[in-house]
């Protein structure tokens, strides 16, 4: 029972990995490195999948078209007339969040100590400890996404309604609601952030506890729900709420 609290703390704190470059030591948190990996994977996948596009789709092009059509339909059903403006942003955030929430199923990188025990090579001992955990378990990363979508809401409101119409929207049904409308811009990113962060962190903690308590068979089954289903659902909900806020801003 004693080890559980420390395990939770270890999951919650973000490790810093020192990178030595030109005599300087740059500490970089592991969620940033995980995001770099995800970015590289997404960029490579999108370059590979969109090569040699044809009018009549075949093979891998079918997969891309299904994804793009899903994003387009999602945006069109919630945003409405101006969907073409927002579909790229919505799709990018959706893909990135799906990758980042489910990345912990690829967490098979052994730690430096394990490699040393396995091979008895001294060099592996200095290998930094690195776990592929979802970057959104860090509250700052989730807040970054929330602020990004809030900025998108403001920009879309100004772009579609012009500055005058956007300002007028604050007093739309009755002017009494003005403070609440201003408050909306602070509460919405907070709630988006905490939804993402709390869900992912909860899933990660539960998975770590299960790994510690019963390392055989059970984690594989539970991981389907906590890592894959919950991660994809939360990414979808985040994107869905963002598109709803955009729809409200441009109406």
């Amino acid at each position, binding site marked *: 029972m004693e080890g559980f*609290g420390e395990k*939770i*703390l270890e999951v*919650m704190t973000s490790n810093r990995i020192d990178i030595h470059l030109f005599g300087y030591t740059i500490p970089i948190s592991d969620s940033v490195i995980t995001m770099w990996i995800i970015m590289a994977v997404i960029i490579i996948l999108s370059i590979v999948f969109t090569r040699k596009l044809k009018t009549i789709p075949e093979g891998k092009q079918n997969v891309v078209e299904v994804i793009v059509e899903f994003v387009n339909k999602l945006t069109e*059903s*919630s945003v409405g007339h101006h969907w073409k403006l927002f579909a790229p942003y919505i799709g990018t955030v959706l893909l990135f969040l799906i990758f980042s929430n489910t990345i912990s199923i690829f967490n098979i990188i052994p730690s430096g100590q394990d490699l040393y025990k396995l091979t008895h090579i001294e060099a592996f001992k200095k290998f930094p400890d690195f776990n592929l955990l979802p970057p959104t378990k860090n509250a700052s990363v989730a807040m970054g996404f929330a602020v990004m979508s809030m900025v998108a809401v403001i920009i879309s409101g100004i772009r579609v309604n012009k500055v005058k119409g956007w300002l007028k929207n604050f007093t739309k049904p009755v002017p009494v609601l003005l403070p609440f409308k201003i408050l909306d811009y602070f509460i919405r990113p907070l*709630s988006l952030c*905490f*939804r993402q*962060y*709390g*869900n992912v*962190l*909860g899933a990660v903690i539960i998975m770590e506890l299960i790994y510690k308590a019963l390392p055989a068979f059970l984690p594989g089954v539970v991981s389907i729900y906590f890592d894959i289903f919950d991660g994809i659902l939360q990414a*979808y*909900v985040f994107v*869905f*709420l963002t598109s*709803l806020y955009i729809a409200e801003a441009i109406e």
Partner: protein
Amino acid sequence: MGIQAIAVSLALLACVSAGIGISFATAKAVESVARQPEAASKIQTVLLLGAALAEATAIYGFVIALLMILLK
């Protein structure tokens, strides 16, 4: 830890309310899909939105409980 454990468990009561709320919403959604199967997709989006908003309370409780454990 004594009193703090009670406080944490009280904070986690938020999860109970979220569970009850989501289950009510889902029951109504099932009912309305059975009545009008052609409106299923619309009902699904509305249900998802409602469930996400109701779930937020549970998440707030969870985050506050975690903070209470860690920031003694």
